[in-house]
């Protein structure tokens, strides 16, 4: 009797050991990082409509076009290379000394009515990454607004921000940072049919 019980317990022991210590960690297929997956409880309250008035100032902002915009247009990054605008640290205001470059870009667009332009906003590495991605977009949009102010149709101007991810100078010093805080202008022409 005792021996039978011992055998049974041993068998049970092996089975349990396999189930708990041996097998469990290998076969566990956890949801990454989560020991207890978020249960589907607490249904979200219904979404309220956005307030009609925002507490901030009513800014003048020019909507961006719907996609695809100028997808597949041919890019020429060299045409307006000399018109790259540089910015002060942590600023998206176009310095007065750089405004003639905006006029130069506007003149090009007026003389080449089939073209469009993509403004590429960039930052130095001294902001945090996503902050810089937003700041770079603000810099590109500042140029877009200035071009619209000079009579360019808004849908001829695309914007993109590379944040700090596309420095022209990879150095970690003032000279490099100054070069990297910039808007580049890429001329876009329609693809040949």
């Amino acid at each position, binding site marked *: 009797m005792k021996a039978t019980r011992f055998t049974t*317990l041993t068998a*049970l*022991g092996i089975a*349990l*050991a*396999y189930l*708990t*210590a*041996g*097998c*469990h*960690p*290998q076969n566990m297929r956890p*949801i*990454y*990082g*989560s*020991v207890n*997956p*978020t249960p*589907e409880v607490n249904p*979200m*309250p219904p*979404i*309220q*409509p*956005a*307030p009609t008035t*925002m*507490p*901030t*100032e009513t*800014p003048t*902002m*020019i*909507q*961006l076009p*719907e*996609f695809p915009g100028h*997808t597949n247009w041919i890019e020429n990054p060299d045409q307006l290379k000399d018109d790259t605008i540089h910015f002060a640290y942590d600023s*998206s205001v176009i310095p007065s000394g750089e405004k003639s470059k905006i006029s130069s870009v506007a003149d090009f667009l007026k003389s080449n009515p089939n073209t469009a332009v993509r403004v590429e906003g960039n930052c130095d590495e*001294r902001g*945090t*990454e*996503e*902050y810089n*991605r*937003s700041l770079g*977009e*603000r810099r590109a*949009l500042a140029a877009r607004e200035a071009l619209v102010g000079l009579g360019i149709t808004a849908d001829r101007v*695309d*914007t*993109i*921000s590379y*944040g700090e*991810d*596309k420095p022209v100078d*990879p150095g*970690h010093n003032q000279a490099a940072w100054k070069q990297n805080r910039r808007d580049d202008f890429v001329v876009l022409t329609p693809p040949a049919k």
Partner: protein
Amino acid sequence: MDSLKKRILFSALLLGIGFSVVAQPPPLEVTKETHPGAEPPIWVSLSGFSGEAESVLRFDLYVQGFNFTNADNAQYLIIGSNNGNFQGRVTDRYNKGTLLAKAYSGASLRRQTHLFVDEFMKALGRAGISQTKIAFKKDLGSTSEIAVADFDGAGEQAVTADHTIVAAPEWAPGRLALYYTSYKLGNPDIFYHDLSSGQRRVFSRYAGLNTSPAASPDGRRVAMILSKGGSPDVYACNADGSGLLRLTATREDESSPCWSPDGQWICYATKIGERRVLCKIPSTGGHPQHIPTSGVLSPSEPSWSPDGQWIAFTAQMSNFEICVVPAGGGAVTELVTGEDPSWSPNSRTLVYTRREGGRRVLSLLDVPTKQYKDISRITGSNSQPSWAN
């Protein structure tokens, strides 16, 4: 059979080998930390371990607020062996008793050691982090990609092979899935990527900027930064992309939205006048509120702790500093030099980025003790870590 024998036999059965267990005292009460960076470490001594088991023990314990000393000065003695399999016992010298005794078989020694540390945390009334994952951006020069790894950097796996700029990974809560930004289609767009099937879809592709995705704690909504309205602003939509709601409408460059754990608020970085600040706004729309961060400049990259108590963020002064502030705002505690903090699921440890020369290094910070350690297994330049919750 008397009850002690039964208990021993049952324990042995559960453990899978004949490793006897003395009755466990009830878990210790752990008081809530209220002074980030000011807690002393908990002293432990290790004996009997070597090689990988010892290095895993040291890493896991150090980034959870423990430090190492000899047996005479330690509160906890951790004694065991790792001959093939891991076994270990924790003795509490203050409360005079065995806190934990475990032996493992199966899986890898690394995994066994992680499980043991988690059991130790559990015995202390804490949630362990040893089986959690992180996602991050790998900087490859002119391009970047997303990768995931265990929280200690083991088992790194590439998520993207886009050969372009890829950034800002965030986990979908409770799922093996990520949201991130990729320039793959010529524009910064947000993708949703199911890591178990490998399938991904474009989540947000409006004109202009689509970045900084952040899933709500229940996974049903996603906050992000879009510039389609003419300026970078905070938006939120449902997890299927429907119901897009513009939450801010400023000319400033909002960035890095994150959710309060109850899903009621979205915290983000913005500017008021010329000052960089943190604000929060009801996630269903409403008035933004300033979150005061007195004593530091240019806060960005907020991360709300899963327990709701703290907001970690980056202050930009002469260096980037990792800071925490009570979620309602107030006195800021500067912790260590670094940026882009992301909380562990137990609201104790932060993963963040540290700049070292031209390189960026992922590091772990135990907030109560301010102990930090680089995740040195992840080589190269890496940033934007996100801890799976």
